[in-house]
Structures are given as structure tokens and as C-alpha cells.
């Protein structure tokens, strides 16, 4: 077994790195899991308000962002496969494409949030205090969950950029690509959470 060969002399252990990332992904799932639990309880308490609240969101922008993230998941997968086949150039291009798509997602998010802010709808605003309880909770959850997700997008972008520079410097290469693989795993997680957020926030009308 590779585990045994590696034991005494070899410090590098790719399996351990991958296992560590998977465990970290579990914690992220439970972090969002707590929020999804809160969401499901309040939605069952205030189904009408959640229905009406979701009408205020732009399904078009949400759908575009969903497509953007799905494509970015594909591009990061291509980047990983490319480095495994020693195609450094393609890998770097695909990483840049992924980061670009992530940025596009954030730009869309910015316009979405900006429109809400423009109408005075943001956590702590006067308008929010005037809303009925169900709407208040719906928009609070909307900002909280999409905000936390956006934070994860930013962390993912940073990880992908680090991978990019490591590929460029030749530190991530054909026989040593765990950093890129873990960044890609994390990126898939960010994508996956959005796949749940999108229908729960936008498509419940």
C-alpha cells in the first residue's frame, strides 16, 4: 500500500490532503445546513410571504448566474484534467476563465443587491422594519444566505488564483496537482450550494 511506502520517509501525502478537503467540505455543508434548516422552518410558517417575496427577485439574473456557475465548474474540471495531462497552458487558461466567471457572478450579484438597496430594501433599513414578519424573514434570509455564499465565491476565487500562480510557477504540475484539485473541489462545493439556493430563493413562486 502507498500509505506504508510513504510512511517513514515521504512527507507528501496526496490522499491525506484530499481527505482533509473532503472533511472541510462536510463542515461547510453543515454550516449551510443550519441555514437551510432555518429557511425550511420559516418557510413552512410563512409560505405566502415567502412566495410573494420571491416574486421580487429576478429569475433571469438568478438563472444567468446558475449557468455561469455551472460553466465555471466545468472549466475548473477541464483545468484539472489539463494539468494531469501536462497541458499547463490550457490549465492556466481554464483557471483564468473560472475566475472570470466567478467575477461575472459577483457583478450580477452586485447589480441584484444594488437594485434592492436602491429601493431601500436591505438588512437594518427602515423599509425592512415596516415589512410584515414573513417578508422580513424572507429578505433577511435572502441577504444572509446569498451574502454568505458570495463570501464563499470570493474565497474560492482566491484559492483558484493561488492555484493559477502555482501552475505558472511550476509548483502545481502533472505529478503534483493536489492544490489545484482541492481548489476545484471547493469550487464545486460553492457551485453546489448555489444549485440549492437558486430554487429555494428564486423559484418558489
Amino acid at each position, binding site marked *: 500500500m502507498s*500509505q*506504508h511506502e510513504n*510512511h*517513514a520517509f515521504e512527507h507528501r*501525502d496526496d*490522499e*491525506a490532503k484530499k*481527505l*482533509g478537503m473532503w*472533511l*472541510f467540505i*462536510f*463542515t*461547510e455543508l*453543515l*454550516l*449551510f*445546513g*443550519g*441555514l437551510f*434548516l*432555518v429557511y425550511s*422552518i*420559516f418557510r413552512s*410558517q*410563512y409560505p405566502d410571504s415567502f412566495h410573494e417575496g420571491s416574486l421580487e427577485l429576478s429569475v433571469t439574473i438568478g438563472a444567468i448566474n446558475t449557468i455561469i456557475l455551472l460553466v465555471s465548474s466545468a472549466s475548473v474540471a477541464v483545468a484539472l484534467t489539463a494539468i494531469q495531462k501536462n497541458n499547463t497552458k490550457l490549465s492556466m487558461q481554464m483557471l483564468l476563465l473560472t475566475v472570470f466567471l466567478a467575477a461575472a457572478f459577483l457583478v450580477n450579484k452586485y447589480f441584484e443587491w444594488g437594485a434592492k438597496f436602491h429601493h431601500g430594501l436591505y*438588512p*437594518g433599513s427602515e423599509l*425592512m*422594519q415596516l415589512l*410584515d*414578519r*414573513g417578508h*422580513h*424573514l424572507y429578505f*433577511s434570509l435572502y441577504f*444572509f444566505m446569498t451574502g454568505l455564499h458570495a463570501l464563499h465565491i470570493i474565497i474560492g476565487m482566491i484559492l483558484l488564483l493561488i492555484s493559477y500562480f502555482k501552475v505558472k510557477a511550476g509548483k502545481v504540475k502533472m505529478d503534483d496537482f493536489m492544490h489545484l484539485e482541492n481548489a476545484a473541489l471547493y469550487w464545486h462545493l460553492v457551485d453546489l450550494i448555489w444549485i440549492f439556493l437558486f430554487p429555494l430563493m428564486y423559484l418558489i413562486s
Partner: protein
Amino acid sequence: MRKETKYVSYLDYEGQYKGIFGWIFSTDHKRLGLLYLYAIALFFFVGAILGLTMRVELATPGETIMKAQAYNGVFTVHGVIMIFMVVIPGLSAVFGNFFLPLMIGAKDVAFPKLNRLTWWILIAGSILAIASQFLREGPPDTGWTFYAPYSTKTGTSVIIATTAAFVLGFASILTGLNFIVTIHRLRAPGMKFFNMPLFPWALYAASWIQLLATPVVGITLVMLIFERLFGIGFFNPDLGGDPILFQHLFWIYSHPAVYIMILPAMGVITEVIPTFCQRRIYGYKAIAISSLAIAAVGFFVWGHHMYTSGMSEQARWFFSLLTFIVAVPSAIKVFNWIATMYRGSINLQAPFLYALFFIFLFIIGGTTGLILGAVAPNVQVHDTSFVVAHFHYIIFGGMGFAFFSGLHYWFPKMYGRMYNLKAANWGAIILFIGFNLLYFPQFIIGYQGMPRRYYDYLPQFQWAQTISLIGGIILFIGFFVMVGNLVRGAKKGAIAPANPWNGTTLEWTVPSPPPVENFDEDPIIKSDPYDYK
């Protein structure tokens, strides 16, 4: 295999950094274990002083040394420090870091740099928590449970205290992650899961809880912070939220957290008892699997903290039933420990003495836990000092005494020197007497209706509060005897041999203190880790 290297102990090793930086920038799991030990000992001392001021306040009815608001701050910060900074990292961070790699025949944990970062995160969180006591808004007065909606409204520095708990949770998650990967990947060649000693097994089970439960409380605390900052109403009924939801989310973590504390404690006891009885552990597999069973069932019992908060009848009997089920694997361990002692050649040294006290106190704490787990008596004694006594018997009498047991057990390995055995025994006995005097009367007056978290009480409870205060003072004397003896031992004690207790697990096969890389050649793995001949 490898060419002979000169033996340099991890204490003397001079690496890239010198002096104190050689410690705080070290990635050596042994040095980090000691760093955790010193940090946690300091936090424990701060928490214990706060505890003693509470006892002094309760020496007489009415105001003794502080007002009600100050008392609220003291019990909150006492709870936050003791729970999040002492007992949750406690055994796993100190002894787990130091001995997990040694016991499974590894050179370090899987991610040494992450391990160093984790210590730094713990220190950062701890600074925040202690700062919350001194900020202008005044110390948080919510209790360590931060129950909403009060925690969303009070003017005290709740945000900084919850941020501290969040940061400390991050440290806990990373420790758990590191240990799980270490156990999966770094066991020495030939060591299967069921050849591992039982302390690593306990750490493995606890690590899964740390990993899976902590994020839930993390997000809950972040929601609480946002609720305070932006007037979001997740937990505030005035804004449509639900305070019971906060309690559920909080206890989904905080009950399993009890098992984060107690599982490694049980693991230490499982190491100490066979060594000092020179007898193979009874029921190896039962103990290993019961750790996993406690971890698994422990996730589904949180509702027993909330019988009086408003839950359906079905939910209450469901949680009550599960609470009784989770007691079964704990009892399996107790029976196995006692069965191990049967016909053993018992060597009554301080680690074993602490282990015996642990069993005694854990049985009291555990059986009163069953009283609390049954719905009807729980409603009677909920939020009384009966609960205070119960969880101090588990957390301090259980986890605390196991910590002292492990400290005395592994001390010669950690420092390469031996403490005074007789003084150590006296320290244990004084602590045991002080502990029982302090907490047992609280069972009685709790049953009679003494509420917890009150700075005042009716005159008829005076006798018990006086005994508790005396117990508290004796407890402090015990600490000074114990700590003084250990500090003296670390500096001037006799040089300890590699295996002073005739233990069989791998940490006793290396010199004391261990060399930097632990094992100069791959250790020989026996199929039975507790093979006494």
C-alpha cells in the same frame, strides 16, 4: 534502515527559530501540545478565579461582594472560558496533539502547519473572549448559552463574546479535521484500526463530533451577531422569529460538545487503568465501538435541554428515550474499566488515583444525568443548582479529573522528569474532598428549589452555600499542591526512565522526553496494544 542519528529531545532541539519563537512558530506536535497545556492552564486559572468569586458572593444571602449585574457577567464569562477555552480543546488539544502521533507510531500529525495555525486561532479567540469582560459595554450577561431573545437585546458586549466562540469553534474544527486525517493516513505500517490503543479511538470519535457539530453553532452565532447588528428577526418573536429555534440550533452543537469533552477523557482513563493494573483492557472492541456509539447517538439527544422550553409531548419522550440509550455505551465503558481491575496487580499512583476518582464522580454525574433526562423530574429541577451540580460532576469531576490523571500519567514522558509521587497522591485526595464538598450540597438545595444563576438566595440554603465555599477553598489548596508539585517536578524532579509505569503502548517505547522525530525507525506493532507479560 536509517542511519543512526544522535538523540536530541524535542525540548532541546534547536531549529530555524530560537528561544520563544522556537516554540510559537514550531510545527512539532509535542511542542504544540505543551503550548496548548500552558494556554489552557492559564485559562483554567482565570475561570477558576471567577468561579471562586461566585462562591464568595454566595457566601451570604443578598449582596456580599458584587451586585446582580456583575454576578451575571462573572458566571457568563466563567462559562465561556471554561467551556470554549478549557474543556472543549482541553484533552484533545493537549494530550491528543502530544500523544496521538506517538501512540499510532507517526512522526507528526497529518497537517503540522495547520496544527500551528490552529493554536494561533485558539489564542486569538481566547483574547476576544477575555476582552469581552473588560469592554465598556460591560461583560456579556446572557450565560454561556447566549439564549435569544435576551441575547439579541441586552446592551452588554455579546457580539465580541459570540465572535470569540465562533473563532474558537474554528480551532476546534481544524483540530478534529487534523486528527481524523492523521488516524486514517499516518498509522504505522501494520497498525490496523483495531490495533490502535483506545485513546486514539476516543479522539477519533470526538473528532468527528468536532467536525460535524461545530459548524451548526458557528452559523447560529453568526446569525445572532447579524440579528444584533441589523435588526434581523431570526430569533426575536417581535420580528416573527423563534427563540426556541435558537435553543434547538444551539444544543444541536452544545450537547454533542459534551461528548467532545468527555470522550477523550474516557480515552485517557482507558489508558491509565490497564497500565496501573498491569492487565489487558477488558472488552477492547466494546470500548472502541462504544466511543463511536456515544458520538453517533449523542447527536440526537439535544432536546433534553429544552423540556420546559415548549416542545411537543412526542418530542419530549423521544429525546428522553434517546438520552437513556446514550447512557448505555457510557456504562459499557465503566463496567469494562472495573472488570479490568479485577485480579490486576494494582499500583496506586496518582494517575490511577485520579482515574478511580473519575469513575466515582462520573457515575454520580451520569446517574444524575439520567434523572435530568427523564421528563418528569427534569421539570422539577430544571434551571436549579441540581443541574449545576450535575454538569460540574461530569465536566469537572469527569473531564477535569481525567485531565489530571492524564497529566500525571504522561508527565514523565512529556518532561523527562518525575514529580514527587507522594505529594501527587495528596494533591489528588485534597482535590477529591474539595470537589465533593463544593458540588454535592448543590444537588440537595437544587432539589429543594435553589435556582441557578442567582446571586441571592433564601436563608434556608445558607448551610449548603457555606459548605460549598469551604469546598471551593479546599479545591484551590488542592490545585496549588498539584501544580506546585508538577512545576517542581518539571524543573528539579528525578530523571524519568523511558517507561516508568511499565506501559505497553508505543509512546513508552521511545526515550523520555521523545526525540524530535519521535521514532528513529518504524516501530514494531503488536496486534494487541495492551499486552502485559
